[in-house]
């Protein structure tokens, strides 16, 4: 019996195969379609469950995909040229030579995160052309109809159609797209967080071995450290468990170890960026046996640096909460007074600090207000529950 063939093992090859086709002269949009078709054919040939006569997968799967995808591409071009009554197809036979480089693969990352794309389009295109997901999988992950996602992806491909394939783009735009994918979490049968980690790992390797691109390594570390906490972040009934209350024995220690190692190598390069600094905060949490034993003074220091770098009001809010832990709730409330009250979770932070300062009535009122402003239902339920807890104690 053939050894089990996992369709997912092909997906890491997708951007490289697209890169080869484009390098050989294919246009990106047609190349991308051709590679998707080659994936389907690979699955049919080697992976169809229950098929008795399925073939043994070749040793060089990438070579196989390039051959099949190139054939598909030629089919499309030939039928178009035939329509145009031209005979150019023969010129499109691949020249013998290199079968793609790391730079070509990296170009596919850049193209899919091109600044001309909206974030929504860049995310969709990245998940298809870089992650190798099907349109149906991307649609399910974002809870939209498949036809909507198909339209979004083809519009995105049209937007980048005329872009050159040989000028290097900006890694920062790619990182932002991968961060968006990571933050979406998971629904349907695709784990977007795991997918984002896989792509960021790939990007970090392409951008330079040994953490030569410290911010991409920082993003990878940040994702790993957050992903490590995931088993502890929800109860079985779907309700949220805040960081302070999480059962830390459920944290994934292997992911934490890897995240910390990746981060240390990145920080050693002395070119700090916001993802490295956020990861540094996450690493301090990961390192603490309990919320109380967290090195909050150092957390505040990282937030200071992050704030100096970004000026982000969200960072300012998180810093105020950390100050509340390091220097006491009064100091935290004073720091919070400097934060724009329209920043998401401002009320929730205020409620938390007021409770710690002993003002439970104010805290209960603020928690109830925060619940009204919550950005998702589990958060709303959690904040309502906090208000209920304090109101009961007051009775």
């Amino acid at each position, binding site marked *: 019996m053939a050894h089990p063939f996992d369709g997912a093992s092909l997906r890491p090859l997708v951007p490289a195969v697209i890169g080869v086709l484009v390098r050989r002269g294919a246009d990106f949009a047609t190349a991308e379609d051709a590679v998707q078709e080659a994936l389907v054919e690979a699955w049919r040939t080697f992976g169809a469950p229950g098929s008795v006569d399925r073939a043994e997968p070749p040793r060089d799967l990438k070579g196989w995909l390039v051959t099949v995808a190139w054939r598909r591409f030629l089919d499309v071009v030939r039928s178009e040229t035939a329509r145009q009554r031209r005979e150019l197809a023969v010129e499109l036979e691949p020249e013998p030579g290199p079968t793609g480089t790391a730079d070509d693969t990296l170009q596919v990352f850049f193209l899919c995160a091109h600044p001309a794309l909206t974030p929504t389009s860049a995310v969709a295109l990245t998940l298809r052309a870089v992650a190798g997901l099907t349109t149906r999988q991307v649609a399910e992950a974002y809870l939209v109809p498949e036809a909507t996602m198909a339209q979004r992806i083809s519009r995105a491909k049209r937007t980048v159609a005329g872009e050159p394939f040989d000028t290097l783009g900006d890694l920062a735009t790619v990182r932002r797209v991968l961060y968006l994918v990571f933050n979406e979490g998971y629904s349907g049968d695709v784990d977007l967080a795991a997918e984002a980690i896989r792509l960021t790992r790939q990007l970090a390797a392409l951008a330079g071995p040994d953490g030569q691109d410290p911010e991409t390594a920082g993003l990878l570390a940040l994702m790993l450290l957050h992903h490590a906490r995931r088993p502890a972040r929800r109860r079985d*009934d779907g*309700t949220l468990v805040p960081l302070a209350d999480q059962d830390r024995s459920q944290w994934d220690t292997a992911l934490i170890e890897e995240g910390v190692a990746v981060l240390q190598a990145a920080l050693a390069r002395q070119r700090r960026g916001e993802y490295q600094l956020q990861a540094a905060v996450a690493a301090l949490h990961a390192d603490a046996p309990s919320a109380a034993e967290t090195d909050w003074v150092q957390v505040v220091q990282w937030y200071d640096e992050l704030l100096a770098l970004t000026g982000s009001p969200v960072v300012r809010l998180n810093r105020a909460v950390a100050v509340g832990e390091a220097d006491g709730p009064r100091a935290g409330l004073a720091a919070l007074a400097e934060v724009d009250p329209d920043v998401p979770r401002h009320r929730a932070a205020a409620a938390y600090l007021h409770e710690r300062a002993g003002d439970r009535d104010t805290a*209960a009122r603020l928690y109830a207000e925060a619940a009204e402003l*919550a950005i998702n*239902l589990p958060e709303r339920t959690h904040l309502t529950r906090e208000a209920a807890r304090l109101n*009961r104690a007051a009775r």
Partner: protein
Amino acid sequence: MPKYLILKHYRGTPATVNDVPMDQWAPEEVDAHMQFMTDFGTRLEESGEYVDAQALSPEGAWVRADDQRQPATDGPFAETKDLIAGWYVVDVDGWDRAVELAGELSLAPGKDGKPIHEWLEVRPFYGAPSATGD
């Protein structure tokens, strides 16, 4: 099979029997209520009647185009009497079954674990014209 929308409101319905704001319940009562809603959705899926369920934030605004054809907002909805909290869409045998389901939902537990007797709004979807309806 016809589809029905079962609408939940934050406010704007007639008064309910067990009408106490959620932050005045015990935390376990909040949990029990949320569990009831989850179980209700699960039962609909198991019975093959589930189409969609969504919850809405109470935030938002009224929007219209002004004389310069630019969108102008008004709100948030503080003064509006009616505020939708979310919905279930069910695909069922008919009106009676939709009413039966809304009745179940109305009995979600509230303060002291007693049913809220919440008012739900049930609205039929316009379906496509039938093949025999001409």
